[in-house]
């Protein structure tokens, strides 16, 4: 049971890692298309990347907060 929970935590942590990187990538791509469409280069790319970084950080923050809460309260496994 202990290993099962550890395995699930590894999977969820690795998912957060991938989502963090992809968020920045998606934000940058959206910003790039905004630049192309509205001719506002390079502001779209900069703002898109910043929003992507914020999205990744928020996901990481939520994950860490839930994980810390779970360990602090010694509750059952939760979804992050």
């Amino acid at each position: 049971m202990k290993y099962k929970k550890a395995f699930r935590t590894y999977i969820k942590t690795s998912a957060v890692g991938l989502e963090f990187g992809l968020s920045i990538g998606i934000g940058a791509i959206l910003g790039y298309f905004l630049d192309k469409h509205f001719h506002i280069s390079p502001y779209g790319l900069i703002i898109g990347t910043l929003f992507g970084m914020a999205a990744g950080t928020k996901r990481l923050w939520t994950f860490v907060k839930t994980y810390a809460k779970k360990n602090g309260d010694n509750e059952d496994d939760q979804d992050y």
Partner: protein
Amino acid sequence: MDHHSSWFHLLPFYDRLLGFFQNNFSESVIFRSGLFPKERIFETVHHIIAALLVVIILAILSLMANARLKQIEKCLVPSPKITILNIFEVFVQVVISIMKDTIGADYRRYVPMVGTLALFILVSNLIGLIPGFISPTNNLNTTIGCGLLVFIYFNIHGFRTHGIGHLTHLANPMGTWWGWFLAPLFLPIELIGLCVRPLSLGIRLAGNMIGDHKVLFAFAGLMPFLLPLPFYFLGLLVSLIQTVVFCLLTCVYISLHTQEDSH
């Protein structure tokens, strides 16, 4: 059999199918734009045929298991031999245990979707280990397609559980009146966070399977006798683990969007 051919080339209609794609789609805008080289479309055709093969295999196996289940008196005592029904029972037990641990008491509603996806991905991953067959999950189109299916599914259930609150939660995650002033900041952040999920599911699965099969083929090319055996074992492990990962993350996403206290 050379590196670029498979058992599918023995199908009588296969060359005609490739010709159809070559004549009708090789000059479309998406390929002229340089996003995808022309040759890539033929690789995709192999994967589509492989996916169809997986669907046919699963349909036949399911019908056989179902026919066996109808004979109730034979099912009450499990067979001492390994049968299709035993394999399906073990599979369903594993999927249900993952879902029960992650989603909670309301897991039954989601079993058909998650179970079907898990079955398709497992068989797709495993079929790639047979020499001469191509794994459908070796292609981003298949895996991101599965990811998009999960995306649509958890959003539908999000709307079912929270109604319009599923959408307003994106703009105002705090749920307070002053939270609406932060909506221009939060909406793009939450939208990016939401859109990243199907991509992350698809890229992870495709990346792992492509890497696994590349390593296997590289070592099989070096020495086809005995050397690929450990890599076949690793391939088997990766196929199983990636199915569990996809299944578990689907359950996590569903539970994140359907839990009553998540909003």
